[in-house]
C-alpha cells in the first residue's frame, strides 16, 4: 500500500513539475502549439520544464532564497511571465506571417499512423517497457555507485534548500610527509543540472532518495529518448522521399517504427540504455534525450526557417550545458559537423545558405535569448566544469590507451552488429543519393553519424582526450537512425516499380524475414548478456543497517573509512551521514593506487595493512578510528592485533573501532 502511495505521489509531482511549465511555455511561444506534432509537444514540454526548473532553482539559489515548494512555484510562474513578456516584444519573429492552418494540416498528415502502424508502435513500446522493467526490477535497489554519488548532492540541495558547494575533503600529504584531512576543495565531476530535478521532486513529494524514484525518473527519461529518436527519424524521413523508392513503404511513419524497433525491444539494456538507468549515469541519460531533441529542433528551425524554433533549440542547448558536459561537447561537434557537411554539399549555393542562416540568427527572438543566456552565464552562474577549468582536460592528444579510439570490432560489439552494419549501409545510401545529401535531413543524420564515428575510432584527428568507450556510447543513436532509414529504404527499393533492384514478392518476404531474424537475434543477445541474475538485496540491507547503526552513534570527532571493493552499495553510505561528499573515506580499487603512485595511499594502508608502520601513521595523523569492511575479505588483518575492537558484525559487514 505504501509503495502505491509513493508511486502516485511521485507520478503526480513529476507530471505537474516536468510537463505543465514546458507545455505552458510552448503555448505562450507558439500559439496553441500548432506547429508541433503531439509527440513533439510531449517531448518538448518535458525538456523545457527541466530547463525552467533548473534555471529557476539556480536563480533562487544565487538570490539566497531557500528552496521551498512555494518559492519554486513562484519562480516558475515568474519564468513563464518573463517568457510571455519576451513574446510580446518579439511577437512577429516568433509567429511568422506564413503560420496558417496549413502547418497544422501538414503536421497531422505527417504524424498520422495507420491503424496497423499505430498498433505496432504500441506493441513495440509495450515490449520496450516490459524488457526494461524486467531488467530494472533486478537493479532498482539503490546499489549503483554513480547514483549514490548523485543522490548525495540532490539530498544536500533538498535538505539545505540551497545550491550545493561542489567540494570534498581528502587525505593530503604535507611537505614534511605528515598526513592530514584537507578542507573541502572544489570538484569538477558534477554539474548542477544532474541534481536539481531530483531535489525538486523530493521537495514536493518528500520521496525518499532510497526509494525507486531516482531510477524510475531516469527510466522515464530513457524511454522519452526512444520517442525523441523516433520523432527525429520521422521528421527527417519526410525530407528524404525519392521517386525511385516505393512510396507506400518509404514513409516517415515506417522509418519511425523501424527506429522504435532498433532502440526499443532490441539493444534495450546495454549501455547507453537501461544499464545507464540502473547505473545512475544521470548526465548521459539526460544527454541522450536532449541531443536528438535539440537536433530535431535545430533541423526544423533551419529547414522551416523558424526563428522561434531556433530559440527553443538554443534554450535546450543551454539547459544541456548546465546538465552534462560530455553531451554538450558531443552536441557542439555534431552541430559544427552538420553545418560543414551541409555547406560542402551545397557549395554552389554557399552564399544563399549563409544568408538564410544569418537572417535566422539575427531575428529578435534568438538575439534576445542569447543576451539573456549571456547574462545568466556570466552574472548568475556558470557550469562547474567551466568554473573549475575542467574543459581543457577533455581536449588534446589522447593520453591513455583507453582514449586512443575503439577498433571497428569494438564499435560493432558495443553498438550492436545489426545496428552498425545497417547504419553503415544507411550512411552509404544517403551519401550516394545526392538529392538527400544536399538537404538538411541528410546533413543532420550524416553529420551526426560521421563525426561521432571519427571521434570514436580516430579521436586524435579531432584532439579528443576522452575515454573512447564513453564517446562510443553516443554512436548508437545516429547509427540506429541510419539503420532504420537503410532498412526501410532497401525494402522500398526492392518493391519500387521504378527501381532496377525490384525483386519478386517471395524474395522480398525472405529478405524481410532475414532482416528481422538478424536484427532481433543480435539485439536479443545483447539484451541477454546484460541481464543480471538476482539483486544483491541481502548485502545491501546489511550495508544500510550497519550505516544506520553508526549514523545514530557517531560523533563529529569520529572518522570513518569504508571499503569500496567488497561492500555492496557503499556509495550510498554517505547519505546516512550527510557530512561531506568524502565521508566516509573510501578504499578504492587497488589498480587505482598502483596506476597512480601520487594518489594518497592512506585509504589503502588503513584497510589492507593496518598493522604496518605506514598504516599506523595514517590512523594517527588522519584521526581515522572506524573501519567498515566485508568480513569475508578484510577481517584477518584487524583480528590479529589488539589495536582494534570489533563493534559490529553481520554476514557482510564488520565495523572495527581503533582503540
Amino acid at each position, binding site marked *: 500500500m505504501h509503495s502505491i502511495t509513493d508511486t502516485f505521489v511521485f507520478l503526480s509531482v513529476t507530471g505537474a513539475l516536468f510537463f505543465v511549465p514546458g507545455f505552458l511555455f510552448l503555448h505562450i511561444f507558439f500559439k496553441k502549439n500548432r506547429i508541433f506534432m503531439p509527440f513533439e509537444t510531449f517531448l518538448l514540454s518535458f525538456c523545457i520544464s527541466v530547463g525552467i526548473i533548473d534555471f529557476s532553482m539556480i536563480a533562487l539559489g544565487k538570490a539566497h532564497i531557500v528552496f521551498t515548494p512555494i518559492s519554486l512555484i513562484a519562480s516558475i510562474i515568474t519564468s513563464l511571465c518573463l517568457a510571455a513578456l519576451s513574446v510580446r516584444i518579439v511577437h512577429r519573429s516568433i509567429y511568422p506571417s506564413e503560420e496558417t492552418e496549413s502547418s497544422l494540416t501538414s503536421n497531422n498528415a505527417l504524424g498520422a499512423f495507420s491503424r496497423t502502424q499505430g498498433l505496432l508502435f*504500441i506493441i513495440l513500446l509495450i515490449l520496450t517497457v516490459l524488457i526494461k522493467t524486467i531488467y530494472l526490477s533486478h537493479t532498482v535497489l539503490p546499489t549503483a555507485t554513480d547514483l549514490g554519488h548523485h543522490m548525495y548532492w540532490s539530498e544536500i540541495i533538498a535538505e539545505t534548500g540551497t545550491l550545493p558547494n561542489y567540494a570534498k575533503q581528502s587525505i593530503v600529504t604535507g611537505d614534511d610527509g605528515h598526513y592530514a584531512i584537507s578542507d573541502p576543495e572544489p570538484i569538477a565531476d558534477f554539474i548542477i543540472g544532474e541534481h536539481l530535478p531530483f531535489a525538486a521532486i523530493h521537495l514536493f513529494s518528500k520521496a525518499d532518495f532510497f526509494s*525507486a524514484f531516482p531510477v*524510475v525518473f531516469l527510466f522515464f527519461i530513457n524511454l522519452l529518448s526512444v520517442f525523441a529518436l523516433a520523432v527525429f527519424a520521422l521528421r527527417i524521413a519526410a525530407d528524404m522521399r525519392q521517386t525511385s523508392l516505393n512510396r507506400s513503404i518509404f514513409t516517415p511513419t515506417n522509418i519511425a517504427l523501424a527506429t522504435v524497433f532498433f532502440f526499443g525491444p532490441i539493444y534495450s539494456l546495454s549501455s547507453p540504455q537501461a544499464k545507464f538507468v540502473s547505473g545512475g549515469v544521470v548526465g548521459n541519460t539526460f544527454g541522450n534525450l536532449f541531443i536528438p531533441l535539440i537536433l530535431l529542433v535545430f533541423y526544423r528551425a533551419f529547414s522551416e526557417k523558424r526563428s522561434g524554433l531556433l530559440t527553443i533549440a538554443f534554450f535546450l542547448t543551454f539547459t544541456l550545458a548546465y546538465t552534462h558536459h560530455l553531451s554538450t561537447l558531443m552536441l557542439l561537434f555534431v552541430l559544427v559537423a552538420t553545418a560543414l557537411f551541409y555547406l560542402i554539399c551545397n557549395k554552389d549555393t554557399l552564399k544563399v545558405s549563409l544568408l538564410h542562416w544569418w537572417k535566422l540568427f539575427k531575428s529578435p527572438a534568438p538575439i534576445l535569448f542569447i543576451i539573456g543566456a549571456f547574462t545568466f552565464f556570466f552574472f548568475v552562474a556558470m557550469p562547474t566544469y567551466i568554473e573549475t577549468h575542467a574543459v581543457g582536460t577533455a581536449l588534446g592528444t589522447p593520453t591513455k590507451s583507453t582514449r586512443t579510439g575503439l577498433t571497428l570490432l569494438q564499435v560493432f560489439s558495443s553498438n550492436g552488429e545489426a545496428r552498425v552494419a545497417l547504419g553503415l549501409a544507411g550512411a552509404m545510401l544517403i551519401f550516394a543519393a545526392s538529392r538527400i545529401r544536399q538537404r538538411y535531413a541528410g546533413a543532420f543524420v550524416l553529420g551526426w553519424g560521421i563525426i561521432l564515428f571519427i571521434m570514436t575510432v580516430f579521436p586524435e584527428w579531432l584532439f579528443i582526450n576522452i575515454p573512447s568507450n564513453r564517446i562510443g556510447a553516443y554512436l548508437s543513436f545516429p547509427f540506429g537512425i541510419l539503420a532504420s532509414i537503410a532498412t526501410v529504404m532497401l525494402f522500398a527499393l526492392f518493391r519500387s516499380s521504378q527501381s532496377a533492384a525490384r525483386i519478386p514478392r517471395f524474395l522480398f518476404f525472405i529478405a524481410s524475414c532475414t532482416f528481422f531474424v538478424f536484427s532481433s537475434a543480435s539485439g536479443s543477445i545483447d539484451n541477454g548478456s546484460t541481464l543480471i541474475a538476482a539483486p544483491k538485496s541481502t548485502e545491501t540491507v546489511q550495508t544500510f543497517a550497519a550505516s544506520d*547503526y553508526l549514523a545514530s552513534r557517531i560523533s563529529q570527532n569520529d572518522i570513518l573509512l569504508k571499503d569500496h571493493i567488497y561492500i555492496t552499495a557503499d556509495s550510498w553510505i554517505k547519505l546516512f551521514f550527510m557530512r561531506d561528499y568524502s565521508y566516509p573515506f573510501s578504499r578504492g580499487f587497488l589498480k587505482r593506487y598502483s596506476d597512480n603512485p601520487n594518489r594518497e595511499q592512506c585509504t589503502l594502508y588503513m584497510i589492507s595493512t593496518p598493522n604496518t608502520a605506514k598504516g599506523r601513521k595514517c590512523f594517527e595523523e588522519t584521526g581515522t578510528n572506524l573501519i567498515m569492511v566485508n568480513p569475508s575479505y578484510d577481517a584477518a588483518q584487524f583480528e590479529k592485533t589488539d589495536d582494534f575492537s570489533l563493534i559490529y*558484525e553481520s554476514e557482510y559487514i564488520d565495523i572495527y573501532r581503533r582503540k
Partner: protein
Amino acid sequence: MTSNPMRQTPIVIAFLAMFIISSAFLFWQNARELDPNTGKNWWALSFSVLDDDTSLVFRIENHSDLSSFHYEVLVGKKHVRLAEDSFSLNRGETIEIHPNIDQLPDGRVSIIVTSGNEKKEIYR
C-alpha cells in the same frame, strides 16, 4: 495513409499507462527488496555504545527465522566465562542486553552469540 489513421495522442496515452504500471511495480519491488525481513535471513550483533570501551551492553537485530539465542561473555586468551544467558528474539525484533558483570577484568572481552549453527562475535 489509410482512411482510419491513428493519431499520436492515443499512443502517448498508451505509453503513459504502461509507464505508470511499470513504475508501480518498480516502487513495490524496491520497497520489498529494501525490507530487511522480506526474503532474507540474517542477523547482526553489535555493541550498543560506540565509544565506551568499558561498556559491554550489546544488541542483536534479528531478521532471520532463528528465534533462540545464547550469549557468552568471555575474557582473555583463555576465554574465561564471565556471564552467559539464553533469550528468544523473533524476526524483525531488536534486543539490547546488559550482561550482569560487576567488575571488568583486563584483556580482550568477547561477546559470542550463537543461534542454531550460526555464531557471531564482537570484542573490545
